[in-house]
Every structure is written in structure tokens, then in C-alpha cells.
């Protein structure tokens, strides 16, 4: 050792490991337009596909005439269901155990449904040819309301045997998909019957859409000489796509390579399998050249997976003092034309059963009826872990309604019902084991940060001023305390199409001490290349800047279930730490050999192994890596690499306290968000800057959903919101300033204690914004109104309450 040796803290800082606000390594290429997205891929001889789509929401397809389209110069093929049928690819399985038409097979069930696939020499010719395909339709009665659907004589899915069970048990009507029940219905109803106070309300979480910046697309390239299919696409789960493609096409899995290049946002929209992917594959097999399909914005909004559309009818009971005694919920879930949700198989309503929230509720019941309608299929987890947003919105609205019923302060009602710190691990009435939490500390910190009592005082004064006619603006304080369930999940109860939901990481240390790690996940903007390198840096002492993270190529990355449901850090992040520990164990043996001491006599110290009690005698990880490859070490294989497949023992349960302060103009329905405070507890924090970025982004999506974003249909099933003029995406102008904060309660079962954070702001943000709107009108008798809280709906609320004089 000499004076030049950096001290411990300095060596630690050099690693840029966990806890460091390391700049995102991805941003250099994204901010300079050097990303490589699916639409950037151009292969020699590549053809372009485009869809003929149904203008009707429900119609029989009488005939399809492709002659004029085929006659157009540059058109290579026009595929219809008839062409796919011999391959059994005119229908495909969905991730929810249902099946979906790839191309219209006799009828169409939603506006925008894929009817024919045109393949042409360029994208322009394809678009022209789409216009030339003549389809004769016979309109059928349209059902857009799930309640009417269950009473209708109109059978939407004529392909299903009405008396046969569905994937999730008996169906009570031809348009019914499943009834899923959790909890103790009888006991819950008994408690409700006896309760001092019961609040009952219907909470509708409207249909919206993840609307990633980049829409969906794929490039399929079938090499007929070597029999290999390469599929580039916007896939949040590339390995699952490979397996499904193999099962569907009969091509052996080793002959399929799936690549997710850079992905411009997913938010659940890119989990499912779409007809475009299938058609590009078939077209490439048929033509023998690569075929690209990329949808446009309207196609994305009209036909690929939507989110939410849950009608949640709830009852919550409490003692006079406000202690909650039971929760009951029946949800009618509008799934659209096909059940194409992307939930773990055993959970047809996802993790909606986290709807007891952050509260110690002794008994609860949840029933969910899935229903078919003439709307686009989907029901994906839009920046949430399988219906957790719906659950959080439901319970956080029910708490507010109960507070009204009890004439209590909603912050206090939450406080007296929180699960206490010493109750963790906590078993909820609906069957989950919450890993860790300290809700009271987080809540107190949040209320103090916003000066909650001061806000309530100001609000009361505002109400008085309003009544005196001195102002036309009301003030709302939107409270939310949410608990998520993320990181799916334990293979014993979580699978998708039978594939267990583990994840993986493989790390290779190069001889000169830098490294590459590959994971089964795929970043769509989450910053994996930045944060996973930080985990490795801290685990094995190689600087994050010397570590390449690679994901998304199934030929090179280890198998994993992909990125959604905040599972990357809880599952693949755990695998990363475990793989790092395997490397560290081998490094320890090598270091001991090099230092000529017993294995047990060396200890890890930031970036090296040193002899215990003699820190000046050490070997850095760089030294060890070199030796691993270049020195014959008795009893030790050359090389330094490891792979870990991690099957999580439990989910993780991030939580947070959000408070939104909003002014509401009762005359115009416009709102002004004065303050938004977001406290997140995601366990161990890997990169505070990335966390903050995720929170800002998620809150802005929550703002959009709560305040204007929706997929709306008219009675005829026409989608009314298929462009960004009507589908609300906030700009910097509409986006408020966010104050972020945190507490840290590590997950006890996760190797590094991290819980996941990417979805928390959407889960907690929506109820915070919505509760602020509701709270503004509480003094005037509002109990429940429906999102999105756009200008006219807020205006209508004010009008219905008689506030327009």
C-alpha cells in the first residue's frame, strides 16, 4: 500500500454502485436520436405490411375481394383468414387462456379489428392497397356496455360453446368470461350486516390506454436456407414471444431468435401478442423475405391493448370510531371482444385482491365478472402490476367515502386503520403476505411536509369565501396511501401460459476486469443499463462504468419473463445480485490462492479481497479477473462468470403517501394543481435519480388518466378518442411541479432489499389527483363522480350540486 491508494469511501464512490445518482447511460443515444427502434430496422429486400381494419364494431364479413389490391403495382400478397386457416393461424391463443382472431374469421367484433393484411414493396403502396380491398359487411347489433352485455340475446363470441367452461371456470351467459372470487363472502356479508356504519359506492375506473410514444411493430425474417426465423419487435417479454412463436408455428425454439431492440415505452401495451406480429411472420414465411409491420398512432389506440375499464361496486364497514371491520367488492370487468389480459394464469383479475390496501381489514370478499363487449381487447397492466391501479383506486375512494359517512377526517381515518409496523409480515384477508412496511412513519412525514392542518384550515376558509360569493374556486386536498404488490412472482403460483415467472441474469467478467451482464428482462425506458450495472458494481466491486448490460436478444440473454408489473428489480435485480454473489465466491477462492492464505482468511472490501487483519495485503477484482483467465489455479476452473435464475419467495410490497392540492374552477371545470407531494418507499434505493425520473413520469401518466385520458366509444362502438387531439397526453404546460420524498423499508426477502418503483406513481397518483377533485366538492355533498375529471365532467359535478346558482 502506498499514499496513492484511495481510501475506502473514494473507492466506493468510484464504483458508482447502489445509492449513486449515476447518470443514465442510455440517454446519450436517446437524446441524440441514435436509438435503434423496430422501425429503424431495415433488412435487404424487406416488404411492408398494413392492415385492412373493420370500420364496424360488430358485423358479419360477407366477402372480401382482393383483386383490385393485388392488381396494384408493388403489391405482393393480401392475406385473409382463409390463407391463415390451413396453418391454424387465423386464431391465436391469448395470454389469458382465450383465443383471438388474427384476421377476421367470418365476423368482426370491434372497430379497428384486423380484417386483411396487405404486403407490398413499400409502406406507401401498402397503404394505397388497403384502400383497394373491398370488404362487404353486414352490421350486427353492437354492445358497448358490459352490464347490458350480460342481459343481451346477442351472442358476441359465436366461436365459443355457450355451455362449456371458460379458461377460468363456468360461464353464466354467452357473453360472460369468468367469475373469479377471493375471500370469505359469507363472513364479510355477516360483518356488513352487523356493522355500525357501511359506506357503499360504485367506483368506475374508466377505459384508457398505455399509449407508448413508440407504437407496436415487428420485423420478421424467415431464412429458408438455414430454417431460422428472426423476429424483431416491440416485446416486453421477448423470451415468452419466442416460446409462443415456436408453439404456434411448429418451428423449433432453437431456430427462432427474438430481438427486442430499443423500445420507446411499453407500459403494458407491449406484453401481449398482436395479429401484426403473427401476420409479419406468416408473410415472411410465405414470401421468403423479411416483412415489417409497424402500426400508426390511431391503430395503436384503437386496436392494441387498452387498460382498466373496471366497474367496482364496493361496501366498506366500520365501527362508529372508524375502525374498518370489513370490505366487499364486486367488479364488472369489461374485457372487450377477446380476453387478452396479460395476467398470471391463476389470476384472471390480476392482483385486484390487493384491494384491502394499506389497511388492517379483518375480513374481505372480492368477486370479479369478466364480460365480452364490442370493444378492443386488452385489459393490460398500464404501468401497474396486474390491476393494482384498479385496486388502489377502489380502496382509496372507498376510504374517502367512508370518511364522509363517518364525518371524519380522511387522513385520520387512514391512520387508525393502517397495518402497524410490528404486524409485518402481514397476512391480508384476501391472501397476500405483505413483506414489510412502516406506514405510520411515512404518513406522518407526508402530512407534516405539506402542513396538512394548515391546508385544511385554508380549505375551510375557502369554502366560507365561496359561500359568501367572494371566489368561484374551490380547493381540494387529495390524499392517498397506497400499497402495491409487485415482482411477480413465485413460480409456485405465478405463470404466464405455463411459464413460471422467475427471471435471470448472467454475468461474465472479462480478463481485464470489465464485464457484461445479460438479463431476461427488457428495458423500455426504465434505465436497466444504468441500474443493473450499479447492483453488480456494489456486489462484486467492478465500476458500473465498466459493465455493459444487455437485454432483449433471446439468442444471447438467459431466459426470463420480461419487464412489466415492476418485476425487473424484484426478480431480475435479485438474480443479478445472486449471480454477483456466485462470482464473488469464486473470486474469494482465487484471491486466497493469490495471497497464499486460506479462503476464510480473506474478506471482501468494496473492490477487492484483502487478508483479514492485514488490509495492505489485497487483490483487486481486476487482479482477480486477470488471474481467473490466465493463471492455472489448482482445483479452480478458468474463467469468471455466473448465471442465476431467481424464483422469488414472495412478492414485494412498495408503498407510498401522495398528497395533491388542487384549485377547481366551478364555472369552467378547469383545475390548477398547486402542489403535489410524493413520498415513495421502494425499499433499498439503487439510483435516486432514476427513481425520481420514474416517479415524475408515472405521476404525469397518472395526471393524464385522472384528468382527461380515456378511450371512449359511442353507442355504435365507434372509438371517439383515437388521436392525440382527443386522447390526453399532458405537455410540460399541463404538468405540475412534483416534490419527491422517501422513506426506506427494505424488503426482508429480497437479496438487496429493493422493491421496485416504476409503477408506484401511477398506482398512487391516480387516486391522489381524483381524490383532490372529489375533496374540493366534499363540503357541498359530493360522494362519487367518475374519472376522467376533464373540464366538462367537473363542470357537470358542480352543476349537479347546484353550484351554478
Amino acid at each position, binding site marked *: 500500500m502506498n499514499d496513492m491508494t484511495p481510501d475506502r469511501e473514494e473507492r466506493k464512490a468510484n464504483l458508482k454502485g447502489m445509492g449513486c445518482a449515476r447518470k443514465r447511460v442510455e440517454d446519450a443515444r436517446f437524446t441524440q436520436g441514435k436509438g435503434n427502434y423496430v422501425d429503424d430496422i431495415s433488412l435487404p429486400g424487406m416488404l411492408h405490411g398494413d392492415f385492412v381494419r373493420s370500420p364496424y364494431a360488430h358485423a358479419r364479413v360477407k366477402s372480401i375481394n382482393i383483386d383490385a389490391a393485388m392488381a396494384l403495382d408493388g403489391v405482393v400478397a393480401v392475406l385473409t383468414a382463409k390463407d391463415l386457416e390451413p396453418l391454424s393461424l387465423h386464431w391465436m391463443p391469448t395470454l389469458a387462456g382465450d383465443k383471438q382472431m388474427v384476421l377476421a374469421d367470418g365476423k368482426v367484433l370491434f372497430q379497428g379489428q384486423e380484417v386483411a393484411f396487405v404486403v407490398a414493396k413499400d409502406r*406507401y403502396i401498402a397503404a394505397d392497397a388497403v384502400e383497394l380491398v373491398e370488404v362487404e359487411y353486414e352490421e350486427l347489433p353492437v354492445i358497448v356496455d358490459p352490464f347490458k352485455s350480460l342481459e343481451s340475446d346477442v351472442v358476441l363470441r359465436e366461436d365459443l360453446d355457450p355451455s362449456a367452461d371458460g379458461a377460468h371456470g363456468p360461464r353464466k351467459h354467452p357473453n360472460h368470461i369468468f367469475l373469479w372470487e377471493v375471500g370469505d363472502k359469507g363472513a364479510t356479508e355477516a360483518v356488513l350486516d352487523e356493522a355500525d356504519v357501511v359506506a357503499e359506492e360504485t367506483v368506475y375506473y374508466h377505459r384508457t390506454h398505455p399509449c407508448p410514444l413508440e407504437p407496436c411493430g415487428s420485423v420478421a425474417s424467415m431464412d429458408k436456407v438455414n430454417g431460422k426465423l428472426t423476429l424483431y419487435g416491440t416485446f416486453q417479454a421477448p423470451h415468452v414471444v419466442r416460446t409462443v412463436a415456436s408453439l404456434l408455428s411448429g418451428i423449433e425454439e432453437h431456430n427462432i431468435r427474438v430481438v427486442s431492440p430499443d423500445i420507446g415505452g411499453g407500459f403494458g401495451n407491449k406484453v401481449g401478442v398482436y395479429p401484426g406480429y403473427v401476420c409479419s411472420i406468416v408473410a415472411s414465411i410465405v414470401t421468403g423475405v423479411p416483412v415489417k409491420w409497424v402500426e400508426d398512432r390511431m391503430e395503436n389506440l384503437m386496436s392494441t391493448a387498452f387498460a382498466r375499464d373496471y366497474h367496482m361496486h364496493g361496501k366498506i364497514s366500520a365501527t362508529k370510531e372508524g375502525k374498518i371491520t370489513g370490505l366487499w367488492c364486486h367488479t364488472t370487468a369489461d374485457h372487450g371482444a377477446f380476453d387478452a389480459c396479460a395476467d398470471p394464469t391463476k389470476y384472471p383479475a390480476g392482483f385486484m385482491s390487493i384491494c384491502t390496501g394499506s389497511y388492517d381489514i379483518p375480513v374481505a370478499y372480492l368477486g370479479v365478472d369478466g364480460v365480452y363487449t364490442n370493444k378492443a381487447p386488452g385489459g393490460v397492466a398500464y404501468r401497474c402490476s396486474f390491476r393494482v391501479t384498479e385496486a388502489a383506486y377502489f380502496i382509496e375512494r372507498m376510504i374517502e367515502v367512508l370518511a364522509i359517512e363517518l364525518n371524519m377526517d380522511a387522513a385520520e381515518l387512514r391512520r387508525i386503520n393502517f397495518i402497524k409496523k410490528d404486524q409485518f409480515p402481514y397476512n391480508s384477508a384476501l391472501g397476500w403476505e405483505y413483506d414489510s412496511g412502516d406506514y405510520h412513519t411515512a404518513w406522518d412525514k407526508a402530512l407534516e411536509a405539506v402542513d396538512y392542518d394548515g391546508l385544511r384550515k385554508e380549505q375551510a376558509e375557502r369554502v366560507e369565501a365561496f359561500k359568501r360569493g367572494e371566489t368561484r374556486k374551490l380547493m381540494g386536498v387529495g390524499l392517498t396511501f397506497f400499497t402495491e404488490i409487485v415482482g411477480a412472482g413465485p413460480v409456485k403460483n405465478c405463470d404466464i401460459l405455463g411459464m413460471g415467472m422467475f427471471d435471470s441474469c448472467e454475468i461474465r467478467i472479462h480478463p481485464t476486469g470489465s464485464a457484461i451482464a445479460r438479463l431476461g428482462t427488457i428495458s423500455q425506458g426504465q434505465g436497466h443499463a444504468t441500474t443493473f450495472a450499479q447492483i453488480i458494481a456494489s456486489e462484486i466491486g467492478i465500476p458500473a462504468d465498466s459493465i455493459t448490460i444487455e437485454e432483449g436478444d433471446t439468442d444471447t440473454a438467459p431466459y426470463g419473463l420480461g419487464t412489466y408489473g415492476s418485476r425487473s428489480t424484484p426478480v431480475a435485480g435479485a438474480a443479478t445480485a445472486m449471480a454477483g454473489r456466485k462470482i464473488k465466491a469464486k473470486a474469494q477462492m482465487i484471491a486466497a490462492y493469490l495471497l497464499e492464505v486460506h479462503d476464510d482468511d480473506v474478506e471482501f472490501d468494496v473492490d477487492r479481497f484483502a487478508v483479514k487483519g492485514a488490509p495492505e495485503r489485497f487483490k483487486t477484482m481486476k487482479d482477480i479477473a486477470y488471474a481467473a483467465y490466465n493463471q492455472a489455479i489448482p482445483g479452480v476452473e478458468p474463467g469468471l462468470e455466473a448465471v442465476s435464475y431467481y424464483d422469488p419467495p414472495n412478492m414485494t410490497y412498495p408503498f407510498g403517501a401522495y398528497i395533491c392540492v388542487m384549485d377547481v374552477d366551478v364555472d369552467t371545470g378547469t383545475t390548477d394543481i398547486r402542489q403535489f407531494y410524493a413520498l415513495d418507499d421502494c425499499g433499498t434505493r439503487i439510483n435516486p435519480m432514476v427513481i425520481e425520473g420514474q416517479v415524475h413520469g408515472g405521476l404525469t401518466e397518472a395526471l393524464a388518466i385522472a384528468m382527461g385520458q380515456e378511450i371512449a366509444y359511442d353507442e355504435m362502438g365507434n372509438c371517439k378518442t383515437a388521436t392525440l387531439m382527443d386522447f390526453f397526453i399532458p405537455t410540460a404546460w399541463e404538468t405540475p411541479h412534483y416534490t419527491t420524498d422517501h422513506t426506506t423499508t427494505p424488503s426482508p426477502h429480497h437479496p438487496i432489499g429493493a422493491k421496485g418503483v416504476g409503477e408506484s406513481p401511477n398506482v398512487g397518483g391516480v387516486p391522489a389527483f381524483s381524490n383532490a377533485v372529489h375533496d374540493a366538492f366534499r363540503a357541498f355533498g359530493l360522494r362519487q363522480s367518475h374519472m376522467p375529471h*376533464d373540464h*366538462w365532467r367537473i363542470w357537470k359535478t358542480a352543476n349537479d350540486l347546484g353550484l351554478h346558482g
Partner: protein
Amino acid sequence: MIPASFEYYRPDNIAAALAVLEEHGDDARVIAGGHSLIPMMKLRMADVPHLIDLQDVKDLRGIKVAGGTVTIGAMVTQAELISSQDIAQAAPIMHEAALQIADPQVRYMGTVGGNIANGDPGNDLPGLMQCLDATLTVVGPNGERDIAAREFYEAAYMTAREDDEILTKVSFAATEGGYAYEKQKRKIGDYATAAASVLLTKEGSTVSTASIAMTNLSDVPVFSEEAGAALQGSSCDTDAVKAAVAAMLEDIEPNEDNRGPVEFKRHVAGVILSRAIERAWSRA
């Protein structure tokens, strides 16, 4: 979102542009900033086999203020309206309105002429032209003619301009007194839920002249003469404002759309107009 194919022309003078229009009749259209036309072409709602780009026609550019008259070339962009000192001085209401059109990207391309000629009830400048009592100058095979803005709009996308005519400029008297352009929209880049243009002059403590027009509340921009009349001679007190709003409500006929139902729009129109009058009066 790919338009059908089209022939592209880029003449550098008006005569050449007119010649293409004449040759292809209905099949030809001029394109200015393209921010209304291109989306329609991409949606294949407009089919334009012959597209005549006016970007190189220098005679259609320029803002001039002379002898109390403001003249704006059809190809002046909405961004230029915002940066022009002449506009800020001679017609500050136009500066205020231009700032509320779409977003900066759209305004760099979108033109005054395109916004006015388009005939979309959602466009902001047509309502403003009503308020300003502007004159629109068009030129066609039979030469040049002037059309009063208040006579220009017939129905949605239907105007008094013939298909073979080009809008060359708009002109109006420099404004005086108080002004306001008030617009409610759902977000940046949205058309109006309701918008009001108000010009007021004051003599002593009473309103001497008032001009009021509304945007996106009928299938054409609405000049509400009665609303203006209700203010004239008043002290712009609450009752006068109420009377003006009541008169305006007689003149509008909003449709339900994603911005909201008719009842809401009528209510907001009243609120927006009251606010515009208040602001204009405070500046008079």
C-alpha cells in the same frame, strides 16, 4: 397515416400557382403551412392529386402597417404574428390570440392565410377576423376581389372563396382601446372549447364601441353584433356584461363533441366572454 400519392408543385409567383389551379380544377389545392391539410390527407379525408406549395411565393409574405391599416400576407406564419412588433402595437389582440393557437411547433409552420381559408370552426383567426371586421383579398382567374370576413364563412369548410382562388392577404384597421382574446382549451395544442374576441373603446366611463366574436361554438365563427350592442353606452357593469352574454348565447349553436355537451359549452362560452369583456375593459 399515409396520404395517397400526389403531384407536388412549388411555384414562385401567384400567376403560376393560379395556372396549376386552373389546369387541375377540383383535383388541385394550395398548401400553406400544411398543419390542417396534411393531417386530413394522412387520414385520407382530403384527396389532393395536385398539391401546390405556396412557400416560395414571396408576394404572399410580409406584415405592413400604413395609414392606420394593418395588412398581413397570407403566408405570414402564426409565429411571425407573435414576434412582430407591428402587430403587438397595431393589433395587440392578434398577438394575444396567436399565442393561444396550437403550440410553438405548429405555429412555426401554420400560416395566417391557411388558418383563415381553412374554414374549420375550430380555427382561432376566423373569429378574430369577425371581431376586427377584416377584409380578405382573394385572387383568381378573373382577377382580385375583396370579401368581408363577416361574409366569408358559409358552413364548416365552406367559404366564399372559389376553389380556383387564392387568399393573398387580410387587412383591417389598427385597433384602439381595450382588447382580449380569451380561450378555454383542454390542453396545449387543442382547439377551443370556447373562445371570445373582444374589442372595446371607452369614452369617459362608458363603452363607445364594442365588437364581439366567438370561436368554435357554431359551424362558422360567430360575430355577435347584438352582444356588442348590449355593451355600447353602458358602463360595462355586471348587468351590461350579462346582457352581452345573453345576446351572444342567442347567436351561437355549439355541437356536442369530446370537449363536452352543448349545455356545458354554452355555460363556458358565457364565462369566457365575461372574462374577455372584463379584461378588455380593464385595458380600455
